[in-house]
């Protein structure tokens, strides 16, 4: 290990650590800091994670069947159960997606915008890019926890007679969850570095909402083929720009036997999105921190 002796400040001379050793330790400490903050707000974190999926599942799988509101293109327990199957995958995907945005983008937008409190972490002895990557890792851990919290609700809360038809493909599930967590946290990093705190409302209106409603949460992507203009399934093609569609379709493959987008499309696209958002996010982070 290379050591450089520096001239002393107030104290006795001390050797500085090699860049790699200092970076490793600092990276771990940054994660420790983020996890401490997460632990402090664990109650709020869990509540925040639960509220949206709970409402979705409650309204669609409990209220609607009770009041006889038709879903899933018809009525009766069969249609409702098939919609429940669609929704479970959608809800898990959506929760992870939201987590990426809430756990990374929102804090970052504030830390950059008003308080500059990110500065002390940027001045920790590691390359600035690693501070950004640390944010993604911490966000991914939160995404992972929310997936674990949400899955039981999505499969349990429903009206009598409504049963999501689940069949877990573990290999797909266990690879998809980390990949999704990284992708959504990297997206959060990208958004957090590009959006000023006063535009957060806009971000929800113009980015988060369209992602949610056109992300296959409430319907399988395969069924969109029916929506055509002049023989062209325009909506099915359009939603392909939405990162969430690959996540929901992936979870559909992982959790159900229902028709879904081919996995040989889902995985490469998710990996490409990970790389794209990480690259853009780290670049944005560097631009915001360094001038």
């Amino acid at each position, binding site marked *: 290990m290379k050591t450089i002796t520096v001239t002393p400040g107030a104290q006795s001379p001390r050797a500085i650590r090699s860049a790699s050793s200092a970076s490793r330790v600092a990276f771990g400490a940054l994660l420790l800091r983020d996890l401490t903050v997460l632990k402090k707000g664990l109650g709020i974190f869990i509540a925040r994670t639960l509220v949206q999926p709970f409402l979705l599942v409650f309204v669609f799988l409990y209220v609607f069947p009770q009041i006889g509101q038709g879903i899933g293109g018809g009525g009766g327990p069969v249609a409702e159960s098939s919609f429940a199957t669609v929704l479970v995958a959608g809800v898990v995907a959506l929760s992870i997606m939201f987590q990426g945005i809430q756990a990374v983008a929102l804090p970052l937008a504030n830390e950059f915008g008003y308080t500059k*409190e990110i500065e002390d972490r940027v001045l920790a002895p590691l390359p600035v890019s690693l501070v950004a990557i640390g944010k993604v890792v911490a966000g991914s851990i939160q995404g992972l926890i929310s997936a674990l919290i949400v899955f039981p609700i999505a499969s349990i809360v429903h009206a009598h007679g409504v049963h999501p038809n689940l069949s877990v493909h573990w290999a797909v599930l266990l690879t998809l969850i980390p990949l999704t967590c990284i992708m959504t946290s990297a997206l959060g990093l990208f958004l957090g570095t590009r959006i000023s705190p006063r535009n957060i409302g806009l971000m929800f209106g113009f980015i988060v909402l369209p992602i949610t409603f056109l992300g296959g949460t409430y319907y399988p992507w395969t069924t969109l083929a029916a929506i055509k203009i002049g023989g062209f399934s325009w909506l099915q093609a359009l939603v392909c720009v939405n990162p969430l569609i690959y996540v929901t379709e992936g979870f559909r493959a992982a959790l159900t036997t229902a028709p879904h987008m081919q996995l040989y499309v889902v995985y490469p696209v998710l990996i490409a999105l990970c790389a794209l958002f990480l690259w853009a996010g780290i670049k944005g982070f560097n631009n915001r921190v360094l001038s």
Partner: protein
Amino acid sequence: MNIPAQQNSDAIINGHPVSDEIIRCEKLTKRYRDGNILAVDQLDMTVHHGEIFGLLGPNGAGKTTTVGMLTTLVVPTSGQAIVAGIDVVTHPALVKQVIGVVAQTNNLDRALTVWENLYYHGRFFGMSARESREAADRLLVEFRLTERARAEVMAISGGMAKRLQVARALLHSPSVLFLDEPTAGLDPQSRLALWEILRKLHSEGQTILLTTHYMEEADAICDRLAIMDHGHILAVNTPKGLKESVGADSIVTISATGNLDALSKLLLERIEGATRSQRVDSIIKLHIKGTTGVLPKVVSVAEQGGFNITDLSVTEPTLETVFINLTGKELRD
């Protein structure tokens, strides 16, 4: 505090003599991408071990940009900067190990308590949990923050927040402590308290580089000063040396009605010992050397010339005088 930094002649490390310099900038330049502004222009500067070095100048002089470059957050457009033997541009992550930075704004971590701000900072810098805990406890005592250890950082006063920022910057024993406008926005009491802290650190041998636009602050605590304006260093010296460079024992400040340029010229001709007369906006600064009791003469010369003096005062040269001499404008805008 007006003596120049002591030469660290005994600074021998591992048998090798160590240069007295701890910061060296050569032709350091920053041109911001937007607006094409040359914020810092070919700056040459040296800071010695154990001194409090001040960058004094008005807002926009390039002080913060200079500190930004030395602390790795601003990437120089050209030139070189070495801090504690490490090149800032090529090894920013290494430089971060040996510097402590107190930003002008309150950038404490709002998600953490007072104590945790110190503790996690120590962990970032590779201290063990125990080392970091002990250092945090010790610094809270030294900076009189122990009672607020568990407080949220938004709940403490501005003076306390600044003390905590200084404590945090010192936690990993940096070779150089940087402070950007450390007392801007502080009440007078907190300002004096911070000066005391900086003097104490100085007596312990801590090298400190600070920026300020308060000449009293620069005068009170800096060993040496660089006066900056428009991205250039105009003069570097001890506060005493800078004031002596004015070449006057006293400065008479005159407010009057009428053609001030004419009055300025008249006073310079007629007042014995006047070395320089300068109109700065609506006042005249008359430099006097080797003469006392000059005020009555100023009044009579002005009255004979048909000018009506509205205000008159005499002071010793200050850093303000130095700044006016160098730039032709006042430091305060």
